[in-house]
Structures are given as structure tokens and as C-alpha cells.
């Protein structure tokens, strides 16, 4: 198939940037979206132009590095899929494809389609852990049974790959789905319950400091999340946060 691409090009953080149009021919349906981008880049290099920078690594939908906003949706038109697992068979001959970076004040553009998502890391520094030393002197793994339903829910929350699609999709650029997934994973396990209150307070505080918007429950995040993280987690975070605010000593 032949495609017309409108790709966001921006030299660096200070540059204003803009959409640049490229024509790309003979693309096969079995190619992944990023393989299509590879071909575009090979073409640009052979023309002596600078290739398009974009984040990507594992290309199997798990590392969360890839991050494009394709035809108006983070990770493109295929539901439950990261950009690297999106295949060109989802497009038609003659299509125009808009390719933009994730947009949020808290995700500044570094170059072209590459954005800085370190705000997510900082939120996790604020409490995304259980304070247990890695000394190896912990108790036996089976000494605390965990109800399967909670273990499964914790796992579902933990499948978040931290790609930032929730922020990109939200009209308010809110990070609530991400933060709620992290808080939920630990809050649902007996091991994490001990610090659950401080964790919710601290992670939300950091989230606010990073400049994400407020959640208005539009559900766009859930619809675009490649891992299907549920809005139930946001309600849980609200609950955890409010009860922590009311019941902690500080």
C-alpha cells in the first residue's frame, strides 16, 4: 500500500516544530508500524535527511517505550495494542496517517516523537515500592496466603507498562490511571498494605507537582490503555487517598 505520512518533526525541546509530510510506497500489511517507520528512516537517510527519532525498544508490547499518537489515538487505531504491535494491515492504501508525539505539559518533547516521561519515574520514587530490604532474610513466600481474587487484581494493575498512553489520551493530560494502577497493585497485597496510606498520599502529591491535569472520569485512558487497566483502579486510588487523608496522624 501507498501512504501519506504527516509526522511531527521537532529538532529539540526549544524548537517550535511542525508536521512534515512524507510519501511512503509499497508498505506491506504484515509489517509492524515501527517497521514502516524504519523504512521511512532508511528512505530519509538515503536522501541525506535526518531520520525521525522515536522511542522504541522491545517491539513486543511490554517495555512501554514506544509512544506515538497515531491518527488521533495513542498507539493508533488497534485496541489493546502498543505502537510496536500495531500492524499495517489496520491501514488502507492511500491513507493519510498523522503521527504526533504524546502531548502533555508533564511530558515535554525531547526530539521529534520522543518525549520525556521521567515524571512517571519521579512519581514512583515518591512511594512506588514496599520498604523491604533485599537482604534475603524475609519470611517464606507462602507464609502469608493471598486470596486469589486479590492476587489476580493486583496482577491486573501491575500489567501497566508505564507507556503514558493514559496521559496522552486524556483531555486533561491526567496521570490518574497510571498512578492508580501502581497504588492498587500494592494496596491489594498484604505486603503492600502496611505502607498503603503514605504511599497514596505521597504519590498523589508528586503527581500533582509534575503538572498533570485533574481526572474528570471521561474514561479515555481506559479506552486507550494497551494493557486494559481498569477505571476501578482510579476509584480505588480515590478511596485510598481520601481514607489516608482522614485517618493518618499527619
Amino acid at each position, binding site marked *: 500500500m501507498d501512504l501519506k505520512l*504527516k509526522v*511531527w518533526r521537532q529538532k529539540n525541546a526549544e524548537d517550535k516544530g511542525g*508536521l512534515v509530510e512524507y510519501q511512503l510506497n509499497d508498505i506491506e500489511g504484515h509489517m509492524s508500524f515501527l517497521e514502516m517507520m524504519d523504512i521511512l528512516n532508511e528512505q530519509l537517510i538515503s536522501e541525506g535527511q535526518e531520520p525521525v527519532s522515536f522511542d522504541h525498544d522491545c517491539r513486543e508490547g511490554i517495555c512501554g517505550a514506544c509512544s506515538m*499518537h497515531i*491518527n*488521533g*489515538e495513542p498507539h493508533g487505531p488497534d485496541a489493546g495494542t502498543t505502537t510496536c504491535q500495531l500492524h499495517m494491515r489496520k491501514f488502507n492504501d492511500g491513507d493519510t496517517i*498523522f503521527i*504526533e508525539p504524546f*502531548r*502533555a*505539559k*508533564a511530558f515535554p518533547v525531547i526530539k521529534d516523537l520522543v518525549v520525556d516521561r521521567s515524571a512517571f519515574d519521579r512519581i514512583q520514587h515518591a512511594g512506588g515500592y514496599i520498604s523491604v530490604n533485599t537482604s534475603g532474610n524475609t519470611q517464606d513466600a507462602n507464609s502469608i496466603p493471598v486470596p486469589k481474587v486479590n492476587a489476580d487484581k493486583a496482577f491486573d494493575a501491575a500489567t501497566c507498562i508505564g507507556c503514558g498512553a493514559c496521559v496522552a*489520551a486524556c*483531555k*486533561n*493530560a*491526567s496521570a*490518574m490511571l497510571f498512578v492508580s494502577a501502581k497504588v492498587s497493585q500494592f494496596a491489594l497485597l498484604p505486603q503492600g498494605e502496611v505502607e498503603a496510606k503514605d504511599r497514596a498520599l505521597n504519590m*498523589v*502529591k508528586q*503527581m*500533582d507537582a509534575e*503538572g*498533570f*491535569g*485533574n*481526572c*474528570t*472520569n*471521561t*474514561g*479515555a485512558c481506559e*479506552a*486507550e490503555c494497551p494493557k486494559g487497566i481498569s*477505571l*476501578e483502579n*482510579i*476509584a*480505588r*486510588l*480515590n*478511596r*485510598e*487517598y*481520601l481514607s489516608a*487523608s*482522614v485517618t*493518618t496522624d*499527619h
Partner: protein
Amino acid sequence: MSWLTKTLSSSIGKKVLMAITGLFLCSFLIIHLMGNLQLFKDDGGYAFNTYTVFMTTNPLIKTVSYVLYFSILFHAVWGIYLEYQNKKARPQGYAMSKNQGSLASRNMAILGTIIFVYIAVHLGDFWYEYKFGHLPYVTYTESLSTGEVTAIETLPDSYTQEVKMLETFNEAEGTKSITVKDLYVEAEEAFSKPLLVIFYVISMVVLGFHLLHGFQSGFQTLGLNHPKYNPLIKKVGIWVFAILIPFAFAVIPVYFLIK
């Protein structure tokens, strides 16, 4: 900062304030609608006008109404402020956006603003007229034994009284006379204007959309989300708050127009 201001100024706290005021306003809608249903009684406005007196004199209801005024103002101003903040979180928009999420949920601020304008017009039409305008007075004569209204007399324009409701008993005839401001006739008059009726109806559609998202969103924000009860919350939000209540409100002006 105290813990309370800290909590309420966090992104979750801010939303909680929207949820609490919003759900409070939802509960008000039920009360308001129940009162308004008196308009459908074919009693020359007797039930409605006496209900109006009750609503404006009962001390408990008066207190609640101040909370209500505050909630309306707060919900509106805070909502606009949050929308402004949310816009700031994405300084540069997309050239192309699919906009997942329902139409209503993405446009709460616009819907809310229209509702706010509506409330202003509505209060001007009725609340202001009732309190500060020159409404005519009406006297209802009611049989003490059956409770039936036997006579309705509209008083001349020049008539006024100190109290909101004047009750006189005629023991010989076994009747009671009640003199009150006639807000009912004001409604009849207002809703004889087709343009105003259209505005009211449109506003109710807007309200329906606002509540379609708002009602269940309030529960989500308060953390009240449970697979067992979510379907109920969703259904009540859609059928009661987004459809039934706005529809019932919208019927009133239409009823008066065609009556």
C-alpha cells in the same frame, strides 16, 4: 497548611469538592421536581403557591437553600477553575484527535456553563420576581371539612401584605381563606412565551447530558465503585438523572404553553 486544606487542594480533593457539591445538587433536583409537580394539579395554583410559601419560610429549608446557593456558585466557579487547570496541563494540542470518552464527559464545562446561564434566567424569572417583583396576590377559600378549594379570588394589583401567607378562618361557613403571592400565574405567564419555553427545554436536555456523566462520575470520584453496585449507579444516572428528571422538568413549560 492544615491536613484538610492540603487534602482539598490536591487533584483528588478538588474533584471531591466537585463531586460532593454536584451530588448535593442532584438531590436538590429531586426535591425541586417534587415541588414543581404541584403545578400539574388543576387547583388554580393552590398547592403550588402554598408549597412555595413553605419552601421560603421553613427555617431548615431556608438554611439548606443558602447551602444550595453556595453549592451552585461553587460548583460553577470551581468547575471553570479546574477546566482552566486541565487546559494548562496540555499547552500544545494534537493536530488530530479521536477523543475517546463520551461526548458529555468531554464537555462538562460547556454543559455546565449553559446550565449556569439557565439557572440565572430561571432565578430571575421566578425567584427574583417572587422576592422582589410585584406579583399579584390570590386568596383561596377552602372548606375546612372536605379540604376542597371552593373559591379563588385574584386580588387587585395594589394589594400587599406583611406576611407571606395570611390565613383567616370563617367558622360560620366552615371555611378557611389563604392569601398568598400567586407564583403560579407568573409561571403561566412566563411559559406562554414560546422562545422561553424552547430555552427551558434545551436547557433541560443540556442538564440531562451533564448528569449523564456527572452523576456516576461523582460516585467514581468518591471512590464508590464496586462491580456489584456500579450497574445500579449507572442505571440511576442514566434513567433517573439524565432522562426522567430533565424530562419531567421540561414537560412543565411545554404543558403551560399548550394548556
